[in-house]
């Protein structure tokens, strides 16, 4: 019984990690409908910010997290003004091409600056080890991930999704021309949303180092996972991503535990089956 609980908890924690690295994408792709394969590149930016501050400048890990969020946001805002805003209307194929190009360039830059080696950061003592609850040992860092994921979900779902701003974003995506014609400053709305989504990506990247490690191919590495989460959650719904990540985590970890022979098939089988029967994802709005 307690083992089952431990496995469940691992699943939840893994799901929350998935959510944290993909929540930014469920903003940029899900809400803005921007096929943002560069999400991973921004996650990598956040990761390297944390790495640079924690491992090179000696900051405490927790203090680097807000900086990872804000710095990535700022960098994304600059690139948005310089580049990304020109491709919102060029169609998803062009967006694919452009953002893949961006990941290439970002990845090469990271390799040049930080080298190809896998980086890690030192965790504060409170986040290493585990908390014992009866017979179950709950690893502290995983508990921490779960907590942050909950905070972000509440923040994004209530701060962005169910607000007038959220409706403005969706309106702008539905029909840019008409949204402009009715007085919405589509450029500003998109810039803000894009920066916010990228900031969240950066935060996710920073939090993921401990589990996934960090290297210049990080951006490609997490791409498939985050796409799966967003697709399963459904476009336009951050809450959907949360639920999808949770299901995915529990299903994947539980599946590996009970039928390890299928270990590498599970995630894909789950996705293909779910999307076949629910193409719009769990809570898709588009």
């Amino acid at each position: 019984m307690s083992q089952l609980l431990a496995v469940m908890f691992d699943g939840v924690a893994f799901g929350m990690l998935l959510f944290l690295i993909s929540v930014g994408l469920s903003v940029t792709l899900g809400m803005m409908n921007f096929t943002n394969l560069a999400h991973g590149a921004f996650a990598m930016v956040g990761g390297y910010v944390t790495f640079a501050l924690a491992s090179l400048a000696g900051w405490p890990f927790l203090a680097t997290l807000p900086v990872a969020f804000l710095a990535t946001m700022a960098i994304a805002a600059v690139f948005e003004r310089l580049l990304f805003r020109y491709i919102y209307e060029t169609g998803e194929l062009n967006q694919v091409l452009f953002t893949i190009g961006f990941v290439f360039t970002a990845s090469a830059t990271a390799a040049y600056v930080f080298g190809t080696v896998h980086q890690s950061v030192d965790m504060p003592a409170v986040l290493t080890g585990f908390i014992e609850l009866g017979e179950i040992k709950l690893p502290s860092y995983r508990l921490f991930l779960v907590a942050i994921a909950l905070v972000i979900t509440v923040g994004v779902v209530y701060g962005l999704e169910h607000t007038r701003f959220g409706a403005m974003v969706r309106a702008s995506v539905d029909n840019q021309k008409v949204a402009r014609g009715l007085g919405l400053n589509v450029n500003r709305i998109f810039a803000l949303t894009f920066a916010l989504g990228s900031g969240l990506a950066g935060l996710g990247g920073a939090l993921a180092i401990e589990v996934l490690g960090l290297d210049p191919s990080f951006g490609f590495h997490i791409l498939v996972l985050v796409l799966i989460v967003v697709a399963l959650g459904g476009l336009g719904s951050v809450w959907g991503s949360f639920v999808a990540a949770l299901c995915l985590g529990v299903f994947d970890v539980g599946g590996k535990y009970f039928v390890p022979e299928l270990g590498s098939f599970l995630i894909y089988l789950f996705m293909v089956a779910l999307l076949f029967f629910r193409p719009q994802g769990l809570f898709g709005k588009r």
Partner: protein
Amino acid sequence: MSTDPHLWLRHKARVSPYEVAFWIAALIVPYVLLPKYLALASQIAIMATFCISLDLILGYAGIISLGHAAFFGIGAYAAGILSARGWGEPLSGLLFAAVVAGLAGWIIGFMIVRVQHLALLMITLGLSFLAVEVANTFDGLTGGADGLLGIDTWKLFGIWKFSIWGHTSYAYALGVSFLIFLLCRRLVHSPFGLTLEAIRENPQRTTAIGVANRRHLQWVFTLSSSIAGIAGAMLAQTTKTVSLESLGFQNSAEIAVMLILGGTGRLYGAIVGTIIFMVARDQLSGMNPKYWYFWIGILLMMVVLFMPRGILGAMQRLAAKMSRS
């Protein structure tokens, strides 16, 4: 402006002198001017064929796939395994690969034609990951992660050996690509090709005029898979290698990048995109093996910013402008 409908349609489908020039150049340039690049040229021809197969479904029928390499890989394994098991005759190997990949495409097609958009993208992607895992699991047949061993390609027509100089490989790859191109060119100018475009534009309306959307889509998907399989088989035969990665995501993504780079829905976009991408990669990575992809990234971004309809789209616009002025 002429509104003679026959003239207009015939004009749209005519063979332009540029096309003839292109194919003559494709034959002559590598052999005569760049004989040291024959290996690259044959792989370009092979990948261009693969890219055309993607253009058929993506550019014309609107089926966005991030997993088309699965069929490329299936073809490669089909031909490779056939050869490793003792039958290395190349042309029959191609045929075999075409049938196997086509069959796989037809079966997967039942699923593909029922979904669109992101779900389609993700399902194709998921299927290709599953394909990799299946091939990894059946390593007795496929050689698993080490790759398939023992491929031996017999002489072409019993005469020409596939040597490291690449003369035979290129002739073979170019010849097969050209035939497939001709076939696809016919297809896109046929009523069937027009129907595909219409389904891509508005499936609701095609249904209302009586078109069986799914049947058409499944058929083109099958055909496209088969062509991808032929391309995979050619690569297996000319390089005598097949690995799991031929089925994988990176291969799928790369071919999509080449297609979009060249421009979708015009066949030549697939060819031009492949040439530019592969030549750029060859040259850049030769110059700077560590950071070459920085420049590839810049190239991709530039193309989107300045040529949103792909390189060929931009060339067409330019040509149209020049002919008008």
